[in-house]
């Protein structure tokens, strides 16, 4: 490694008085005084959410309005802070989606525990749980901070579906194997 000796120049008189530096500093701050402000005025102006953002986890329905969750409980088991609690339930035999067999009876995500890691979304075989764009959660009590099933579907809404897995399954059952 080469050693480069640097000459440290003695300060000039003007530099030692410190005044030219103060003047240039004042010039800089004066410029900033009139520059447009950087602040995003939060409740009115919202930041732009990038794609792939991990916000509040939600449950979604497919475009036909079927709830996608089949209460396999993989997300419950993978959840590192144990924020998810699912009570599995069955779909009534006379329902049009009876062949899906299972749906959650109750689905609770405790937002005081959730760490927004997105593992639940990653592990979900049904693409039913999504971390979407909402990033503000507030409440006055602990109970309010637990999102139940109704609230989760409210937050989640409907997302487009590429597969319609269960519809294909049903038509295959009825009209023979599509494979």
């Amino acid at each position, binding site marked *: 490694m080469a050693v480069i000796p640097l000459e440290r120049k003695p300060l000039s008189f003007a530099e030692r008085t410190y005044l030219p530096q103060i003047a240039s500093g004042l010039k800089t701050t004066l410029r900033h005084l009139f520059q447009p402000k950087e*602040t995003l005025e939060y409740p009115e102006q919202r930041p732009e959410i990038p794609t792939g953002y991990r916000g509040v986890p939600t449950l979604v329905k497919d475009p036909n309005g079927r709830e996608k969750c089949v209460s396999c409980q993989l997300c419950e088991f993978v959840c590192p802070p144990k924020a998810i609690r699912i009570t599995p339930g069955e779909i009534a035999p006379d329902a049009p989606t009876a062949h899906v067999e299972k749906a959650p009876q109750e689905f609770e995500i405790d937002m005081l525990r959730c760490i927004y890691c997105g593992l639940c979304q990653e592990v979900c075989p049904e693409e039913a749980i999504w971390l979407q764009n909402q990033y503000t959660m507030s409440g006055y009590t602990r109970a309010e901070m637990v999102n139940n099933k109704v609230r989760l579907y409210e937050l989640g809404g409907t997302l487009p579906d590429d597969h319609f897995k269960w519809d294909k399954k049903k038509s295959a059952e009825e009209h023979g194997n599509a494979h």
Partner: protein
Amino acid sequence: MDFSFYFDLPLWLRTALQGIAVIAVIFPISAACSMAERKIAAWVQGRPGPNRAIVPWVAPIPFVGRFLQRLGVFQLMADGGKFVFKEDVIPGHVNKFYYYIAPLLALIPALTTVTFVPFGAYWDAAAGTLKPLILANLDVGLLAVFAISSLGVYSVIIAGWASNSKFPFLGSVRASAQLISYELSMTLSVLPVFLWTNAPGGNGTLSLFDVVQTQSQPGFFGGMWYVFLMPLSAFIFLVALFAETNRQPFDMPESESDLVGGFHTEYGEFKWSLFFVAEYAHMLVGSGVFTLLFLGGWNPLPWVPLAPLIEGLPIWLGGLIGIGVFLGKVLAAIFFFMWVRWTLPRFRYDQVMKLGWQKLLPLAIANLIFYALAIALIETRG
């Protein structure tokens, strides 16, 4: 308009009214300065600053209400109200008597000095001269300001000592050393001004009004503000003023980055706000004195004295113009204070001492000797 009814009032009533006037004017201006400080801090840092608080009956006014809200005018009231209604917490380890007395000792000198500062002038048609608008027109004007404003150091010492805790104590020790050190240079720096105004043979005076009068005479030197005639004096005075008012870069007593809050660490709610108001009142008075000494007081421009402009006007209008010009300059000086605060980092304590004793004081003495010789030369020649 005739003001003679006022002078027919008994003396105690007049003094009381003047005292109330001081408090009623200085308190809001100080508070407004604290707001301005927050806004300027924000703007320098690229933020909009406080811009949300609004009172309901102003909100519906189109444009104006919105403008005032964005300007943070009502934040001021919210801040003030907060201080009044906060819980009065007294730490258990303080010396209660001195703990209570310190904020008062800060405020009293700060408000008292205001009475010696002429804040405007009006044209007295009967006498044919300009008269100062001042609460106590003393001949020792500036000396009284210096004497009383330096009492403010006691509040810092007592507050730090009564708090019985180490950061306030360190802050107050530093502050008192700093205040005492810079007073020397400050006093020395204004001496040339008074050497110049007090011509030999005339009546000697330290009156701030007379200083302004000598800056409003005809002729090139007569109308010249002293900041042009004695720039070094003005500079030393300004630097010492920064130190005396505990402003950055001489923010020794507070030094929030290493002493929490310095001498007022243990203070809360209204007592703390008294310290705050006192600090801004000191700044106001300091800027006022600087304006009077070096920036021509109420004269609107260099070589443009006020008197001929307001001669023909009604007395109240002339007076208001005088006050307006003076206040404009004072507020500009205060803006400069804030601008510097958000530009410069704080000096280290040893740098403060070195600057005060080894640089500023010799400079002030040299400046005094130079002007004494120069004035002697001019006087003996002419």
